[in-house]
């Protein structure tokens, strides 16, 4: 495929993902509010926020890293999108596969960190003492989530003898019974549990801790910086859902399927968050060392012999 055509497809895809991400975020907050008996925000609130932020006139800066933080974050989000095959069309070089090297799992997993690094360092430059605390928690939880996640992913990689997301999705085509959810239930279970942590809703939302510590990266930034951060947040949320969708739920054959599946995946974490209270950081870490970990180990054992 011509590189320019590909670039056009990619930009279009990015646009879809950003908007879907914002909409999904608003929807989830609405759902959350309704379940708590509140009215909640309007669906278009994210767009308003974005516009407001990009048009702020007064901006501040703390230093180099203050600039680099959002840049890292957004690059991380966009990069994740670029390296992820979005919609399965049956061709390796299909329109929605972006620049993904067939979606190399190692690349995706490591690149996730790129954005986090930016957020962490950017907030650090602000010099607010509590930003360090929030970041430490976030990174620690991320590391803990990766334990069951990696186990499961390795199991899937063994199962299909590949590290390519494209090939994994390809192998799940045909019937719903070909989904990893059914062919490798332990791995799927481990991933589904790990998802809760990765998406960062209650009980794993101490990182953001909206009710307790009203600070963290989000309060350090305003204006264009915050706009970038929010955009990046939208992209990253969608991309994580898409990752799980590709790994476990058979991928998507169309944008619609992608939207539905990612919504459901995202909703799952919100749903759990409604039910369970927030964990302390050591609780959430040890939680991943228990059931999800065992499931992950079982998944590998199942396919390694």
């Amino acid at each position, binding site marked *: 495929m011509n590189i320019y055509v590909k670039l056009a497809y990619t930009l279009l895809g990015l646009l879809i993902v950003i908007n879907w991400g914002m909409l999904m975020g608003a929807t989830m907050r609405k759902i959350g509010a309704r379940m708590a008996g509140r009215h909640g925000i309007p669906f278009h609130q994210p767009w308003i926020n974005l516009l407001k932020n990009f048009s702020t006139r007064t901006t501040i800066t703390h230093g180099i890293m203050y600039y680099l933080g959002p840049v890292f974050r957004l690059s991380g989000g966009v*990069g994740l999108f670029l390296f992820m095959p979005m919609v399965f069309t049956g061709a390796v070089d299909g329109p929605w596969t972006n620049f993904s090297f067939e979606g190399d799992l190692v690349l995706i*997993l490591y690149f996730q960190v790129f954005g986090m*690094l930016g957020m962490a360092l950017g907030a650090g430059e602000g*010099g607010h003492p509590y930003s360090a*605390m929030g970041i430490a928690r976030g990174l620690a939880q991320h590391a803990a989530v990766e334990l069951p996640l990696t186990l499961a992913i390795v199991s899937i990689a063994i199962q299909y*003898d590949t590290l390519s997301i494209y090939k994994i999705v390809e192998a799940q085509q045909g019937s719903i019974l070909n989904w990893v959810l059914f062919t490798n239930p332990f791995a799927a279970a481990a991933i589904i549990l790990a998802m809760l942590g990765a998406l960062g809703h209650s009980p794993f939302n101490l990182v953001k801790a909206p009710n307790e510590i009203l600070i963290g990266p989000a309060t350090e930034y305003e204006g264009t910086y915050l706009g970038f951060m929010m955009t990046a947040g939208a992209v990253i949320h969608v991309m994580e859902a898409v990752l799980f969708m590709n790994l476990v739920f058979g991928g998507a054959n169309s944008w619609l399927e992608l939207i539905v599946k990612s919504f459901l995946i995202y909703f799952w974490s919100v749903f759990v968050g409604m039910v369970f209270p927030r964990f302390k*950081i050591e609780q959430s870490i040890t939680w991943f060392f228990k059931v999800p970990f065992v499931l992950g180990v079982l998944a590998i054992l199942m396919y*390694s012999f």
Partner: protein
Amino acid sequence: MVDPIHIISSALGVAFAIGIVGKLGKNVTIAVMLSTLAFMAFISLQWFMAFFSGEQETTQIFTAGFKPPISINLQMGFNEALFTLLVNVVGLLGGIYLIDIFKKQSKNVLTVFLVLIMGLNVIIMTRDIFNLFVFMEIVSISIAGLVFMDENLKSSQAGLKYLIATSVIAGMLLIGIIFAYYFTGTLNIDDLIATNLTTIKGGGIVVFLILISIILELKPFPANGWALDVYESSTPGLGAIISAAAATASFFVLSKVMDIAGQEWYYYISLIGAITFIGSNLLGLKQDNAKRLLGYSSIGQLGLLMIILGFRDILGDQTPYVIFGILVSHYFAKAGLFWLSGIVKAQKLTDWAVIRKKPFFLFLMGTFLFALIGFPPFPSFFAKWTLVMELVGSGNVTWVIIVLFGSMLEAVYLFRWFGYAIKGENEHLEVFKIDLHKMIPVWIVALALYAVGYFTAQMTEVGATINFIPLAFVGVLLAIDFLPVFVKNTIAIAGMLLHFYFVYPDLDDIRLLFEVIFIIGGALALIAGYAYKGKRSGFYPVAILMYAGLTGIIEASTTLEFFYGWELMTAGSYFLIIRGKRSMPHGLSYILFSIGGAYALLAGLGMAHVGHTTFGMDILNNIQYLPVWAYALIIIGFLTKTAALGLHIWLPGAHGEAESDVSPMVSAILLKAGVFGLVLVLIGMGAENNQYEMLTYALGWLGALTVILGSIMALFQEDAKRLLAYSSISQLGYIVLGLAVMSHLGWLGAFTYVINHFLYKFILFMTLGAVVLRVGTHNMYQMGGLIKRMPIAFIAVLISIIALAGIPPLSGFAGKWLFYNALIAKGWYFQGVITFISSGIAFLYLWRLIHTVFLGQLKDNHRNVKDISIWFSIPIFVLLIGLLTFSFKPEWVLQPLGNMIAEFFPTGQLTWNGGTAISQYGYWSGSVLGITIGSIFMLILIWLLVSTRKAHKVKQFDITYSGERPERPETTHVAYNVFEGVYKAIWIATIPLVETFWTRVTNLLHDTAGFTRRLYSGDGQSYMLHIVVFIVITYLVIIGG
């Protein structure tokens, strides 16, 4: 030539004449005595040279003109010439050393001294056993008398105990001699050997009595309290004579007389030697008195010599060489150390810190200690090497273990002592004064050690190939140590580059890679040295010593050369490490682990040599004798350098506390030596060989566990350099794991890691080191906000941590990617998961590092701190460029690496499509990644910069802050203990099991030593009891009850 009998006649004649000559005055008398000693030494030397040239044959000197056994005869052969030379030289030097005491004391002391040396000569030369008895009595009496040169409560006791004990021993010997004559009718040793006494009924007992007495003269453990007391209490000049001359002579007597016994005794001699060697070195652990420590060490060395003597049938032609090497090192080193102790006048080990007030004393002391332990280029190194080779070759692995274990114990206390000298508190100690006549002998023996070491190496075929030029360069740097840093640094760098220029054409790819890391990397690291002012005394010789070792292992064509380089490197790096302010205990554990590892390596190389006639490095490819064990030992040896889990406890302290520009050397460069060794040995094991699968499997798990635990430990460090040190442990774990995979991809990953770790750990340690130099603390919570003051350092750290964490697009990712591909292909899934988790953890500690040091609030006292020194920045930026190149054009490095590895692992190579690497599981391209991410990054950055071009710069304190009441100073820094929550979750992984294990081992040894040494109650009577018990027990064991 002068008849050897004149050694006796001149010595005794002068000794007798001193009664008259003494009237001419003290100085004349001393001059006469010293010239007599010189004359004696001259006679021995003359004979020695004659024998050495090979023209002279062994001659017999018949006293009274009758052939033996009618009258007493003396023998002068090569051995006798050598041993009398040793005795007479130390006698002469010792005499010079003792001049001040001689002047103070009565002239009788001179005669006693002269007679002592004469007696030692006779017991070496005589071939008559009763004559031997008489002159052994002369020796004991004169030693006991000379103890009183420095008369005090302690020396009087020691002298009496010594005399009593030697009399008991002599009595036993006399009984043996009486009955030897009774049974055979001769007193001549050669005749006694010929009659084969052990076949006569009762003759066995005669042999027993004679031998046990002579063995007792060698102070076997534990019947040796009497000798230790003399070592401790007598004047050091005498200690030197006893340890160097008397012990040497007694040892020769044993070797001469043991032929009477025949071969069944050899084993027991070795056994007694082993007990002595282990026992006295064990007790040495608890010593805090320097001279007594030397005593224990002397006795231990004699034990080692006895072991060797017992194996002389097995060692065959090599026996003289081995004995010579060990004996001569012991001889020079012990004499030197005793003399030093007399100059320094420090009783307690800790008081030796005073030696630092005269720095060249450290050189002397180091020379002696390293010679004792068996480091190159000293003779003991070559002797120990040959010994182990031969012992393993004959299947006596147990004995190798005994020898190495005992040597290890000895190294422990000697290095602890050395540590006190280098690092101990010396403010309160008074500086000692140096007498010229005391210094001359010390310098002579120190230089002689080097010279003899060189000749020892030349004596063997394999040793003659060793390249001593790098070592000579160390000597040059030592000689110009008084010059300013700038000059020395330039010379050092130039020397290294020149060396590289000459060496590199001959190297194959793997060696070239490591040589570049070692030498070019080393030269880069040295550039930072320009930042130092003044002389930086002692830095350059030791740094170059380490590099000499490193290049030595690269250029090694034989296993001996390899081991030689390995030991040089260990010594050099030890000295480098202990230069740090608080690095003394860590330096000790470093050197101990290194020596332990080196011994494992030595044993392994010995096993590798079995069945081969040469020592070429290719014997590693085909080990025939217990190959699994041999490889395991060699690997363990290398793992101590790569700080694998269980052998890592030295690293954090050693790297963390080293000087700023030393840390990169010992971390980024030195650790690769272990990797290089592993590469060699794994190549030797072969890719296809199934019998080593267990070994590589275990190695793989070890690597994986090292990775995770290293990371976890790094997480909880408050000290920036320790954090990096633990990170190094973890990174080296990756390399070990990658190599253990034994596939093309695994090795490619491992090599990528080798390069990467070199690049980013060099940058990180260098930068952090430079920062530490500026801010004056290692503790991260005492830093913060330094990005404002040190943007250059920040950029360097940022880029290298991105690489270290394996975040695309930087080069760390290349390693990770290759790694997981290799692991999944191998089927090592859990190891893969573990390493993956640990890279998550790595990200945690790296974030903490950069955040705590550079971000957050700037500390008040750092408000005016400058950015890192330009001299530190140069190497940092050179390597940053390298890092970025490697990141964006990985194919430039990975393709040649792949071709190199294909030689050993032809299957499973990466396929390259332009810059895209394709494996079985996926593909990836460094440049595409770089361009993609880079362009997005730049795009967004530009957008942001444009849109916030008018951004208002916020001042430091313009923030909201809801405070928390601090309890301790460090808690005011929010990043202090920032991973508390994580700790609560995974504290279980941070239990220092390994450290506890090694502590337990150490405590066990110390407790055993503490308990055992109660034997030496100080009661002269119990010493006699020990002797009698020793005799009876040995009797029961050997002859049987």
